[in-house]
């Protein structure tokens, strides 16, 4: 019986150790991913010029096929400073059109490099929600974070490949100026004071991206002629890709449909 006890203790301990080892291995893998991303984020050379006379345009509509899930209700009663629409924005469907899909040129630009825009992208906190819910930004571009609420928020991005930070922003505080150095799709941002506040920042290395509006529409302009992979990314429905070839001054329509079963 003593042997049984010892055996049970050993099995239990080995079980725990093997699980912890597995966790460490996962962390190591993530660390090496970070290193790779850092190498990728090495400073690029001068931007490759694009001839505006040949620039093409890709636009389209993203549809949702099936019955849209009912938006989850948010309970904001924890903070009297939070007032506004109380529905979650995880899946926003209006007349079969899907909003908040990040559309970007995933592949086909080769070794081209692009200037980082000087204009900041604004992320606003209002009604204890993020506006917009999905944001696209170039690596290194400034994100200006504002708080228009009468309550304190904390902004906490939880990236895989970028640096994590967590800062509070009281009402009427000066906007925070932040940027993200490395490419990262669906980088979650949350507020730990208001746990329903979630949004996603998509950091890419080219300026060819857009987010679908409430009518599911998007538009990507200024694309040089070529063969591209366009990626459509949604926080709950995942990613779908399409190949497209654009000639000089072309205007292509690329629609995409996400099915309800993808959740």
């Amino acid at each position, binding site marked *: 019986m003593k042997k*049984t*006890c010892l055996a049970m203790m050993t099995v239990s301990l080995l079980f725990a150790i093997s699980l912890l080892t597995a966790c460490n291995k996962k962390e190591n893998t993530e660390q090496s991913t970070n290193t790779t991303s850092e190498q990728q984020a090495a400073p690029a050379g001068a931007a490759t010029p694009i001839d505006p006379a040949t620039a093409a345009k890709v636009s389209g509509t993203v549809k949702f096929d099936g019955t849209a899930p009912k938006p989850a209700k948010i309970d904001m009663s924890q903070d009297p400073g939070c007032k506004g629409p109380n529905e979650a924005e995880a899946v926003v469907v209006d007349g079969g059109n899907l909003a908040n899909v990040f559309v970007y040129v995933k592949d086909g630009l080769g070794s081209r490099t692009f200037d980082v825009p000087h204009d900041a992208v604004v992320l606003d906190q209002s009604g204890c929600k993020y506006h917009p819910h999905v944001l696209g930004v170039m690596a290194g571009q400034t994100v200006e974070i504002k708080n228009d609420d009468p309550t304190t928020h904390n902004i906490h991005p939880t990236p895989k490949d970028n640096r994590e930070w967590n800062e*509070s922003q009281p009402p009427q505080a000066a906007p925070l100026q932040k940027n993200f150095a490395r490419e990262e799709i669906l980088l979650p941002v949350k507020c730990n004071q208001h746990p329903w506040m979630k949004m996603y920042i998509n950091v890419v290395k080219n300026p060819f991206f857009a987010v679908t509006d409430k009518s599911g529409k998007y538009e990507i302009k200024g694309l040089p002629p070529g063969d591209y992979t366009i990626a459509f990314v949604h926080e709950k429905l995942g990613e779908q890709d399409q190949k497209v070839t654009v000639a000089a001054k072309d205007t292509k329509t690329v629609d995409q449909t996400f099915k309800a079963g993808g959740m």
Partner: protein
Amino acid sequence: MQPASSVADKSEGMSEEHVLKFIARSYNQGHHRFAVTLASWTFLLLIAGALVTSNDAGLSVPDWPTSFGSWYKIPKLVGGVQFEHIHRMIAQVAGLLTLILAIWTWRVEKRRWLRILALAAVGTVIAQGILGGLTVLLYLPPAISSAHAALAQTFFCIAVVIALFTGRQWIEEQPRIEFDTRRPALFTLTLLSIFVLYVQLMLGAIFRHHGMSWWPHVVNAVVVSFVLTWTAIRALSLYARIEAVRRPAMLMLSLLIAQLCLGFAAFLTRVAWGKDAAQPELPMVVSTVAHVAVGALLLATAVVLAIQVWRHVPVAFEERLPQAHQDPSAA
């Protein structure tokens, strides 16, 4: 203050009246009540900490050791801040109570090992505070957050056993001793119970802090149920006459049943129904916090049972007989 056996040794040659007076002096009611207060306060602290995790509020106050840059100002207690800051305030009081208890113990207590235990409690509460700070500054890394959760329950067990050792019953009772000849001995089973419960605590904490999946915790729950039931049934079937053993054994069995029910509820509300929730929902918060709290009570009860078994149901002397043969002077 000294254990009853030691008291009995010293009282040789003393009249019954003197012995009673000696015992009366040994038990310090104020000291014991303070120890009970610390244990109760620690239980409250555990619940406050569990509320922080369940409400995903661990980083709602982004700095440490200050709160929003201040050492003393209480921020507006809304949203996640109410959970995190209240947890910090309760923790500060717990630290202060531990320090007072250690000083008090050092001054009034004759048992050296108990004085050391009270000092160990201070060391543990300091380490726990540092882990809590690191978990904020490093953005809730699963390893540190889980260590913070596990050490919290370790500290709770220390506070409970200090309360036990300073209690009137522990000091005044003449232990009713029954030698345990069965194998594995009941004491071994109680140690095994603590071990599997501690593994279960760590697996649960790592899952709760997003370090691994839920299934290892659920699988180990089967092992825990088996070992604890075995221990409790052994204690109740053979030593039910000894109240100090019967009561924690009964409590352990009852808490195990409650804990399994709460674990099932926590699984449903968090894993099955709550994975797509827009925010932590009340049923999930209530069931997971209750699961943590009852888990802590279960661990502390197992520790108390082990101590009482060690005192009342020692392993039979025959175990040591071969050694005695080797060393005749030992007889």
